């Protein structure tokens, strides 16, 4: 199988700030991203839980973005500037993709 080394960014971010993050990814012309829901969690701001919430103020979502290593730094730079005061964590890992032309 033909594999290509890429980077995967995972951003766990409070829901109201999601559009801000996605706008940055769009502006940097990231080839793609996917948003996953989260149910509950805990951190320095205490625990949260989506059950029964009407407002999205207190809840988190996860953004997954696979991209080429050459674009990693610029993306992290832009994202972390936006995240400055916000509730969010960002993790990067190595992945191998098939169909590398997609990224």
């Amino acid at each position, binding site marked *: 199988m033909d594999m290509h080394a890429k980077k995967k960014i995972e951003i766990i971010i409070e829901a*109201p700030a999601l559009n801000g993050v996605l706008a940055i990814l769009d502006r940097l012309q990231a080839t793609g991203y996917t948003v996953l829901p989260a149910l509950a969690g805990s951190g320095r701001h205490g*625990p949260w839980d989506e059950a*029964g*919430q*009407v*407002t999205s*103020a207190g809840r988190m979502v996860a953004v997954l973005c696979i991209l080429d290593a050459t674009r990693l730094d610029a993306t992290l730079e832009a994202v972390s500037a936006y995240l400055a005061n916000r509730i969010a964590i960002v993790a990067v890992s190595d992945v191998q993709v098939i169909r590398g032309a997609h990224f």
Partner: protein
Amino acid sequence: MGALDLAVGNLLSPVVLFFALGVGAALARSDLSFPEAVAKALAIYLMMAIGLKGGVEVSRQGLQPQLIWTVLAGAALSFLIPALAYGVLRLISRLGAVDAAAVAAHYGSISAVTFAAALDALSRAGLGSEGYMVAVAAVMETPAIMAALLIARRAAPEAATGSVGHLLREAGLNGSVVVLVGSFVVGWIAGPAGVKPIAPLFVDLFRGLLCLFLLDMGLVAGRGLSRARRFLTAPLILFGIGMPLISAAIATAIALGLGLSTGGAMLFITLAASASYIAAPAAMRIALPQAEPAIYLTLSLGVTFPFNLAIGLPLYLLLARSVSP
């Protein structure tokens, strides 16, 4: 009905009892919980029902001259209450400028569920109200958010992010505002005859679905209270109960000037006294990310909402009676 009858009747209404059930279940750490999707849909339903009801009333009553004054008074109140709230908070609590401004936004803005509960209380008392109060409610959602942002910019220029214009657009297009105003217009256009075929859903089920929603609100409020207890200092709890009373007093005076009916005055006072829990929290996360969300969420939903629901509503009805013709 005397004051005591009113108060007891309110406490024993299913709406209040189901809210209490939710709070109790959450504090007892029951695993009972409402699916988020259903809670969100119920919130949309309630806005539609409120909006339609108001629109149909307006199409029935025609446009009354007070409308314009009441809308303007509502907008002004929403814009000014935050300054007052901010002052009180800085005086009596230890909240920093940014946290205080964020909390203040919630008390200037309004809570659609409290409005819905007020409509339920009016039904129980057999009272009608001016249909355009829905428009007043919609108009009061946003100015407080702007006011709080301006306060924060002054007090802590580095904390506020984004432009006011951008935020104004976001808050004005907030889903709850759009559904409320949109359904109001639909009700107005369609009129009583057009709305009749959909009345079984939007009229007959209103009070039952409100109970469902309040059970959920109780669960969320209870969970919030048990998690964020440490944020609830005595001065903040005092604020959460005292601020609605201050706003209610001001609104009562204005209602007298506007010459509203008893029902209309009661809704106007309730709007002023209620604290937002859908539009304002989301706007604050965007505009003032440094403010601690647990503070404003817990204060608004865990202290002020239960207070308004259990004690405020009958009180506001008494106030409204005292000033209406």
